[in-house]
């Protein structure tokens, strides 16, 4: 996910002759993904992510980092294409609290996404283009909002392990890679915000509920100085749920998307 906190206390003017890759930090993300069916083709995307990061004494889950609320309306154009549009309210926690700084600040986004699903052999491949328009601010009291655009592309596989196809009671493995680029006035020499390499092991309990866990390595330029590259190891836990709140009669006949 997006990592947008500008580390402060770092000398921005100091520019090394070579890019510098920092020591990796550790994080823990617990993410819930809701995809609530509203109509035959419309879904309400409701995601809440709880993100922690290490402290000096505690790896991974040492302190709150962000609470993340992502909502959107998703339109199922076809079995292979879903288009979504919505907003994000993220609460950023101050992990390096200084004097006169706020403990939490909000961050706002408008986002839209185009996901292409491709069945290949037994597994599925997804290409996800996500564009975010993002307003963020620092923790200091008089901090102004800065505006950036994010350009994200992710390729993801879902490979069933114990069944020929993805279905109920299926274990699957899902490798994914996402490149997050950014642009905007504040972005000078750090267009590559993050590169995330993540593999998760999931279990589809039923079509409406899936759980997964995985490990993610990510790397990206710091906004203030593109020469510095952050590294992260993130432990991730995911719960995917997709209730259908339609009345029974509206579910019939079920849409099979031309299957």
């Amino acid at each position, binding site marked *: 996910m997006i990592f947008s906190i500008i580390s402060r206390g770092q000398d921005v003017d100091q520019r090394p002759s070579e890019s510098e890759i920092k020591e990796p930090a550790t994080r823990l993300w617990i993410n819930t993904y809701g995809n609530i069916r509203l109509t035959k083709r419309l879904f309400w995307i409701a995601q809440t992510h709880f993100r922690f990061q290490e402290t000096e004494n505690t790896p991974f889950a040492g302190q709150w980092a962000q609470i993340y609320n992502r909502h959107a309306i998703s339109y*199922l154009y076809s079995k292979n294409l879903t288009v979504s549009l919505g907003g994000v309210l993220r609460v950023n926690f101050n992990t390096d609290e200084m004097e006169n700084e706020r403990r939490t600040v909000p961050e706002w986004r408008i986002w839209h996404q185009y996901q292409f699903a491709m069945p290949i052999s037994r597994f599925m491949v997804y290409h996800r283009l996500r564009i975010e328009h993002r307003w963020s601010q620092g923790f200091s009291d008089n901090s102004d909002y800065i505006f950036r655009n994010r350009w994200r592309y992710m390729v993801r596989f879902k490979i069933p392990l114990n069944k020929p196809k*993805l279905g*109920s009671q299926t274990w699957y493995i899902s490798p994914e890679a996402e490149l997050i680029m950014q642009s905007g006035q504040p972005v000078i020499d750090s267009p590559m915000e993050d590169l995330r390499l993540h593999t998760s092991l999931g279990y589809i309990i039923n079509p409406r509920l899936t759980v997964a866990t995985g490990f993610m390595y990510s790397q990206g330029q710091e906004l203030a100085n593109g020469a510095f590259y952050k590294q992260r190891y993130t432990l991730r836990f995911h719960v995917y749920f997709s209730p*259908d709140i339609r009345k029974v009669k509206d579910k019939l006949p079920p849409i*099979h998307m031309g299957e």
Partner: protein
Amino acid sequence: MVLRFSILILLSCLTTTVSLSQNSLHYAGPYRVGSYTGKTEFDYKLLDGDTVLHGDFEMQQADLPSLLKQGDDFFSCRGSFMNHVPVGEWIFEFGKFNAGDRLELGNYKYKVNISGTLHSAKGMMLDGKPHGEWTHLVQHLDNSSVTENVFKSVFNFESGIPQRSFRIDNTDYSLLGRFLRDGLAHDVWSLYANETASEVENWQFSEGNLNKIYSYSGSNTDTINAYMADQAVKQVITLDDRYISILELHRELLQHSDTSVNYLMYGILEQHAEYYKQVSQIFTNLGAKSFTPAFKVKVKHFPLNDQEVQQVKSIRSNVDHSEIITERLLNNAQLNLLKLADEEVAYQYSAVAAINSEWLEPLRKLSRYDERDILTYISRSDLLSHLLPAGKNFTSLEVTYTVDNQTYTQVIESSLKKESIDRSDSLIHLKIFSEAVLERLEAIQSSLDSRILKQERQAELDQLERALYQRMKLLDQRVDSLATINDGAIGKTISSLKITGNEIVSEYSELKDISERINRADQLVNCLDSLNTLALEVSEVPARSAVINQEYMDRVWNPFTSTLMDEQIKKPVLEAYENILLPYLLEQVQNNITCDNLGELIAQLKNTNSRMLELKTENTRKLERKLKNQNDPIEVLQLLKIPAAEAN
């Protein structure tokens, strides 16, 4: 002026109505009278919607193609009606013609010669009754030429009553006679043979009473004092076929004492009656009153009192019952075979035959007399001595029968007492006799029935056992083939049916009593049929179960995988079916089968399947909750509302 005009219009309307109501209508076209259909023209009027023949009537039935092929029944009549009552001159012609062998052309028409018989009748009618001279003439035709007068009668009537003298001629005889003014036969009726022109028979009437019959044959003269002559109570009846029947009956009564009188006059009178009947029938069919020329005679009458009426009724009923029994037994194919080998059957069969011809026959005669309404014209004593003649034995009957070329004789007794026949002229004794005969026949019947029954039952059992064997074989074959293609619990269950079938049949084979065997075999045929059905039913379970599974699967869109996924719906219901009901039902089939609960099990299997399919679309939320903690199959059957019997 206006008033006068109105009256004029009113008057003219009135006259029109009257003239309309009196207007005779005319019909010309095909019409049916009795068995005749032909071109018909008649005048009629409508009275309250009814057709009332009024005016001339003419009809002709003639069919040329039929004449040319197989011969034609010709009919024609011509006459008049007044208010549906025949009046004036009437001419009838009845013919049976074949086309002759000559054909002429004349006046631009073919003339076809005919051969056959023509009966023509001609006479006057007054107020629906013959009046004046009536002639019936029957002629033989050959190629349209009269070759012979077969019959001719000339009668004079006055308002339906024959008067004065009459003459009837047929090919052999001529009959001359006369009537009194009131139509009673009177004086001498003489019958002459045409060949010898001599008198052959002479009936002497006196005011309707037939006193004497003289019969001349060669130089012999036989005289019969006819029964009508004495002072007994008389009844005036029509000289028709019934009278002839009465004479016939009297002749029968006399037959044993006097056989030399031929009663030749019957023949000619009968012929005469038949021709008159033909004409009368046409009038009846046209809806006019039946016209019967009233030739009157007097006969002795012995009316039945109420008691006797009842007695005759019982006799007839006993005769009817006895006839049913004799007919049934004598025509029974099995008895006819059995009597060849079985002495007892042979005796009883022959007894029935003997009773039928010796004892039942006179009773049958009485029954016939009553049927023909001539019973009351014969005295009881005459009747009794005629039916049960003195020389014949009605108290015992000798029965002769043959078995294996050996002839045996046995005597059967009736419950009739000899003295009661000799002494009395009462019908009561005939009634008692008829009861005795029926009783005897019934006894023989019940004895023979048990023989027929035994044979029939053995045959029935043989047939049932053949069926049983066939069903058993079928079950074995079916189980063998089904068990090989089904494994696991289903295969095991199907195999168990063969064992069950064998057990049931081996229990049966221990039975000894034939009735018990029949009853059981009958049940077992059905039972094995049901086992067969059950085997099929069980073999269907996997396929049905797969269908149910499929039906309880929903295709659900998973937005996280962008795929459709099968999702089981109503899981508790499906689980109850798969984990509780099916194992229970299969277990029942394996271990708890009897012929009595087979139907129930088949029904349960069927109903479980259909109910599961129904439940898919029903709201089962509550049911699912209840099912979650339920492991008792009986409870589950009830919760799912699966009926234990075949749905109608």
